[in-house]
């Protein structure tokens, strides 16, 4: 009897955890594959590397995951989204390749040290982030419009850097970041993505950044009066976001060992925003969950890979994506859950709290 009670209590605790639904959604998307693609979860070592759909999901979601981390911070702090991340990826990739190629269109050996190229790329990306941050925090331009500027200009800048060409760096060492370290069966991007998530989590744990960001995102005016510099905090979050986009850009360009200004990271900004939302985060800012965004990113990539595995034509893919997204967010919507709780007779639980937005006097 007591055991059962405990069990129930435990179950309730799990189902009410904020990551419960995002995780369920991810699981459902993954499991849906088993029907059509029985070997979906099969992982083998092939040619010295891990091989299988699941590996693809994890590998391919790396850039998205890195972006989603930055997007989460920006969203929480400014209540808006950075839609320029895809373009910033292109800038970073372009700078990296251009430094490595020393200005030539295609090279077979590094013309400059790799480290220099990476630093230059990250600096360029951070600068882009700083530009966005300046417009948003200092000049008070709504994030979406402020970042729209680099969203359009970014790819132009990238092309300017590469002179309108695709710059190829056909050096094996450059493929490491987007490929495999010899002898290691796990793709490198996975390590980079994990590294970024861990690093950001540590920063959030060891400093007060999380508290500051959430506070500024919830009530800017009150935050100012308790001594927080909301301008600086927003600015920092944009710089971090830019920097992370830069990392993602290097990974993406390393995957194709070239700087394709027009295509690196294209449409990824929307997926990153979607990842944040699917992770149960509010796009209006405030409290956030990094783990949620990570799960969201996996969900989106799992969905894409699934649809490829099911041979859905690329141009029709958005239709299915849209439908799945709507189903997921509907399941997560508090109104819908309340409705379910009311109609399911079994749910003799205490009333759900009034909707999150309701304010108490």
């Amino acid at each position, binding site marked *: 009897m007591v055991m059962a009670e405990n069990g129930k209590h435990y179950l309730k605790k799990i189902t009410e955890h904020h990551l419960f639904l995002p995780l369920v959604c991810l699981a459902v998307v993954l499991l849906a594959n088993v029907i059509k693609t029985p070997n979906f979860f099969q992982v083998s070592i092939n040619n010295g590397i891990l091989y*299988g759909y699941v590996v*693809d999901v994890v590998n391919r979601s790396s850039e998205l995951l890195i972006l989603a981390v930055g997007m989460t911070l920006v969203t929480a702090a400014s209540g808006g989204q950075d839609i320029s991340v895809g373009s910033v990826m292109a800038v970073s990739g372009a700078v990296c390749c251009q430094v490595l190629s020393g200005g030539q269109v*295609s090279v077979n050996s590094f013309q400059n040290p790799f480290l220099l190229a990476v630093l230059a790329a990250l600096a360029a990306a951070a600068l882009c982030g700083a530009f966005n941050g300046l417009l948003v925090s200092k000049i008070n331009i709504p994030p979406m419009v402020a970042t729209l500027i680099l969203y359009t200009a970014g790819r132009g800048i990238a092309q300017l850097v590469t002179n309108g060409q*695709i710059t190829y760096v056909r050096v094996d060492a450059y493929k490491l970041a987007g490929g495999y370290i010899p002898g290691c069966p796990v793709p490198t991007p996975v390590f980079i993505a994990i590294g970024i998530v861990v690093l950001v989590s540590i920063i959030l744990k060891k400093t007060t950044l999380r508290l500051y960001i959430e506070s500024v995102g919830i009530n800017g005016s009150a935050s100012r009066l308790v001594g927080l510099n909301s301008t600086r905090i927003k600015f920092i979050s944009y710089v971090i976001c830019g920097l992370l986009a830069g990392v993602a850009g290097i990974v993406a360009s390393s995957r*194709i060992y070239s700087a*394709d200004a027009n*295509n690196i990271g*294209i449409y990824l900004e929307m997926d990153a925003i979607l990842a944040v939302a699917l992770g149960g985060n509010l796009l209006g800012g405030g409290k956030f969950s990094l783990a949620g965004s990570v799960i969201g990113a996996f969900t989106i990539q799992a969905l894409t890979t699934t649809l490829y*595995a099911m041979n859905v034509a690329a141009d029709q893919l958005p239709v299915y994506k849209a439908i799945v997204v709507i189903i997921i967010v509907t399941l997560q919507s508090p109104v819908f859950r309340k409705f379910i709780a009311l109609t399911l007779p079994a749910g003799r639980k205490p009333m759900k709290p009034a909707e999150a937005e309701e304010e108490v006097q």
Partner: protein
Amino acid sequence: GGTSGGDAAAPPEDDANALIVVGFSQVGAESDWRTANTQSMKDTFVEANGYKLIFDDAQQKQENQITAIRNFIQQEVDYIVLAPVTETGWDTVLQEAKDAGIPVIIVDRMIDVSDDSLYTAWVGSDFRQEGDKAAAWIVENFKDKDPVNIVHIQGTIGSSAQIGRTAGLEDAVAKNSNLKIIAQQSGEFTQAKGQEVMESVLKQNDKIDVVYCENDNEAFGVIDALEAAGKTYGRDGDIKIISFDATNAGLTDTLAGKINYNVECNPLHGPRVEKIIKQLESGGTPDKKAYVDEAAFDATTITQADIDARSY
């Protein structure tokens, strides 16, 4: 690449009046091919040759091109050169150009208008023919095999190049019972997507004979995916790779034997257009349609000289 031709210092006033003003509306700068195409125009219509080029980049948006043409009309340019984003939807604005008495020359993609007199001439590639060439190569090389399993990596769905090149292959498949498309998916003309799609295809299909990629970038991605999966491909391997565009990088891979057959898509339209304008200036009537010459390169016959001749 090079520096743009239009940046030169302004010539004396009286000279300016003598210059032929050409308004060129370009699709954008979405690929190396496009950049080479733009450069060709800029190099041709320089003031040294007696032209003033007004260049507009439409950023891949048709509505921008329509706006640009209206703008050219108000600027009273002598000729409008249009590299259309789409084949369709030019009736209204070309009518306006016609009303204003400005000849319009179409380059690259063909346009589909209700009245042919809305444009003066067309210069461009025949994507369908490109597709046919590539398909013919497959038919020729796999005469004795049945079935021939083809993986078809398409371009961006709806683009002219995709439509023409896909039609070429599909037509051949319909005519030759041994050819079989076992997977068809769009790689959106990019290396990254090409790789991602190919990875997925490889997990479902073991027996692949040909991968038909609709441009070089997709082919690079496919090569990466095959490499990772430990498959042999190209001139000396099991899987044959077909590609289009024949850019410098693409030909390099063809020479290296990674791509078996690469069909050219020539971006150098500038001189052709100039020829038409010269004809018009001297009162002649140019041909309504002019295809640019396009070759195809086979990995077994290509030489370094072919690559060196290629600037883009």
